[in-house]
């Protein structure tokens, strides 16, 4: 008796209602202020349901999800670590949640102190000179960062034309570069999974504005030649862009600024544990070296000169700035959470977190490398990739493996990315998981490999224990149904 939760619209009964708002406080006459022609002809068909209907509906829906709070979630490159509840509580204090972005600066000094300190701490952690907190997510940060690079080059008389990305890079890298007006040059990775220096050499010229690297890269390896790369890139006058999605490996362990990166973005919703929320909100602060500070988005947060105790204020007067990339100052509520997280840890705690992340990844890798192909033998950083090629030959794809894992109560790894590894399984356990949890996951992975040798067909129909069976994604795209009772078939 599978009970699927109906749509909220299907629960609607004309005349039913929740009662949070008063009826007819507003008198008809005041609406007279508005010309009839401006008024909506038919009320929007929102559901008419009671409060208990709403509570039940969304409570039940929530229960259909896997989440960090309920499941081990080793989704590679996403850093699904524990999201401390204290951070959420801090962000929802009325002193943070109920302040308006246009309040006088004097009335929000606590918020400004927090933001100022957060910028400073992120500089310290990454080795950069200045940080903007404005971008709303990683991709937004990339776009912001590349625009800064563009302005930097423009100020030197040539904005240049190209941005280099490795073939293992995340899709947002080329996409962001393109949106910023650059042509994208993709270079193949070496056999060792790292940047191929000769390929880089070949691609580098005076028209290259920047190269975007993720480090550790998306197969979980530290770019061992990073210092050499920096030299080659800077020699051509190009800049080094750091995609911070994998910073969780390096907190207190090594700093992109020290490696020579000129511009970076961070994903606070990854490395700094702010909750992913089912796909956001995130926060993608951008850090730059001194030479690029002038280009950061406005307004900039500054300490009022001479103020003691420190007073903070917003400063709009940055003629070289790229301007605003969104309204107001960033995803403030997310920033509060990240600040809380960093304050909890201090330098020691951050370092221990990255150490734990790396050890967890290596421990898990060691348990699995006999059973699945290990394309890059040797130690990994905070995550690693396996290849399901062997299993593919036995009849089960990486997707099958992913789906079957759900039946064991584990979220699947990232699959089919990076594309340079066949039947790729990208596994990031994070530091907040105990050895016990990793052992359980490894056992499941081993059992699945065994199931494949015994009965590969079984996997093709997995998962078996989820609220639904495997979804038909092809049908979804062909018979588009993206809103209830829409004209779009279904």
């Amino acid at each position, binding site marked *: 008796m599978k009970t699927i939760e109906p*749509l909220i*619209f299907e629960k609607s009964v004309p005349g039913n209602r*929740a009662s949070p*708002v008063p009826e007819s*406080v507003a008198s008809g006459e005041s609406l007279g*202020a508005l010309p009839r022609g*401006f008024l909506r002809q038919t009320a929007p068909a*929102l559901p008419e349901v009671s*409060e208990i209907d709403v*509570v039940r509906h969304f409570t039940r829906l*929530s229960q259909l*999800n896997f*989440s*960090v709070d309920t499941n081990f*979630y080793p989704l590679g490159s996403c850093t699904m670590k524990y999201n401390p509840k204290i951070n959420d509580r*801090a962000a929802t204090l009325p*002193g943070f*949640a109920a302040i308006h*972005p*246009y309040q006088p600066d004097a009335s929000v000094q606590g918020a400004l102190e927090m933001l100022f300190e957060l910028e400073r701490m992120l500089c310290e952690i990454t080795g950069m000179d200045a940080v903007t907190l404005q971008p*709303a*997510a990683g*991709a937004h940060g990339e776009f912001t960062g590349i625009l800064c690079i563009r302005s930097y080059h423009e100020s030197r008389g040539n904005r240049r034309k190209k941005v280099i990305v490795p073939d293992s890079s995340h899709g947002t890298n080329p*996409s962001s570069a*393109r*949106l*910023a*007006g650059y042509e994208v040059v993709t270079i193949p990775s070496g056999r060792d999974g790292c940047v191929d220096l000769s390929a880089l050499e070949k691609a580098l010229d005076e028209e290259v504005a920047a190269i975007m690297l993720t480090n550790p890269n998306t197969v979980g*390896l530290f770019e061992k030649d990073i210092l050499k790369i920096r030299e080659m890139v800077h020699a051509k006058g190009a800049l080094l862009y750091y995609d911070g999605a994998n910073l969780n490996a390096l907190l207190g362990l*090594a700093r992109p600024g*020290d*490696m020579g990166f000129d511009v970076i973005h961070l994903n606070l919703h990854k490395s700094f544990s702010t909750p992913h929320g089912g*796909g956001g*909100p*995130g926060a993608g602060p951008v850090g730059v070296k001194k030479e690029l500070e002038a280009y950061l988005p406005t307004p900039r947060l500054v300490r009022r000169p001479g103020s003691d105790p420190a007073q903070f204020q917003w400063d709009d007067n940055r003629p070289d700035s790229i*301007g605003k*990339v*969104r*309204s107001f100052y960033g*995803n403030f*509520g*997310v920033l509060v959470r990240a600040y809380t997280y960093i304050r909890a840890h201090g330098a020691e*705690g951050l370092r221990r*977190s990255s150490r*734990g992340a790396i050890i*967890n990844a290596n421990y898990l890798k060691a348990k699995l490398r006999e059973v699945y192909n290990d394309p890059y033998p040797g*130690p*990994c950083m905070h995550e690693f990739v396996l290849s399901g090629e062997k299993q593919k030959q036995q009849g089960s794809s990486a997707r099958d493996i992913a789906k079957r894992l*759900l039946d064991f109560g584990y979220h699947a790894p990232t699959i089919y990315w990076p594309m340079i590894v066949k039947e790729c399984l990208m596994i990031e356990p994070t530091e907040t*998981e105990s050895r016990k949890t990793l052992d359980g996951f490894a056992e499941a992975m081993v059992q699945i490999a065994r199931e494949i040798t015994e009965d590969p067909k079984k996997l093709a129909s997995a*998962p078996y224990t*989820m609220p639904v*069976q*495997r*979804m038909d*994604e092809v049908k979804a*795209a062909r018979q588009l*149904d*993206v809103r209830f009772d829409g004209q779009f078939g*279904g």
Partner: protein
Amino acid sequence: MDYVPNSDAQLQSMVEASGFRTFEELIASVPQDLRFPELKLPKPLTELELQREMKRLASRNTSSEQALSFLGAGAYEHFIPTVVDYLSGRGEFYTAYTPYQAEASQGTLQVIYEYQTLMCRLTGLDVSNASLYDGASGVAEAAFMCLNLDPDRGKIIVSAGVHPEYLQTIRTYARGINVRIEVLPLADGATRPEDLAAGVDTATAAVFVQSPNFFGVIEDMESLGDVIHGKGAQFVAIPNPISLGLLRAPGEYGADIAVGEGQPLGMPVSYGGPYLGFFTCTKALVHKIPGRLVGRTRDTCGDLGYCLTLQAREQHIRREKATSNICTNQSLMALRATIYLSMLGPRGLHEIAAQNVALSHYAAEQIARVEGCRLPLTRPFFNEFVVKTPVPARVLCEELAEQGIFAGVPLSRFDPARTDEMLVCVTETKTREDIDSYVAALREVARRVEEGVKG
């Protein structure tokens, strides 16, 4: 402190179980002199200390629990039903990733499908995406999208009634591409069809009009739309979603795209974020839409379910050819909007909108009676309006702030020349008594400051 459950001894034994002797062996590829930089961070705090410290910081801000706030200008203080916080705070929503594994994410997926449906119904358009970052970047995404439709149309027109920060964001986004941006000035606070007619041409990709606009004025969208469509350009409407409980919907007045700030739909003002960029458009544009999209489909048993769809538009498949670079969006905020709209229903939303009209008009009337204050605009408005102040608005606002009243947003913030104007917003969170005490304080301060200025 940290959230690593394994003890140091345990960690060491795991290193060994991995076939290594020391942690250092695991990070051999990190150049020696990059390793273990000293980080000058404040000392770690326990949760107890953290609770204290965050309360200390929060208490140094004057929130709308202490002050009476009449600030709007793109971020609105609205009543939020308690269930919105409770339900959106459930860990299963909060701590899930983007729903890549559909079978283990039906909760998030169904919510987004419901969100999409709600936004379509609210705006009267055919398709909604799953969310964008916020109103400003959403508008900029719309500009990108429109410019991509036809290579021969390289100009966009933006009404001066569009939020100044949205315009700034469009300008920033446009840095990488070839586009001409024309700003259309207002008359009596509104965009005039005849002015628009003079500007729009066959090279125009899109025209952006906000209504209620930044100055609170409800635009004559229908007439504007006629002009725009006359030249084959896209009509991009930027509505306040709460106003759609009462005012004509973009679909009703012929907009091709409705994009804007969803924050009023159950999100706290939270110093500017996280908010919600909503985006709906006509069916014709569905394959160009930026951002994620959830579709309903069937599973292998034929049962209904949900999954991400049309992913071929997106960066992780198309890379540099994607319609947008967006990946992580504002899913949790879309959840809040979905719960909010479900709680209010059509009558509740209408009621809230009507109260905004009633209370803001009451406030406007009262303020107009204050010696020296004037309402410079005469057009119909929704929940905010411009006030001409007898003394510099910034001074007035600072004085009132000290009395616990945020009187309005001085327009000098956006245009240094407009020193004696402020934008005042009144929502259902204010009572008539609140307004009366605001007006009394305003009268008092205006007199005092004016005397000070004169004397």
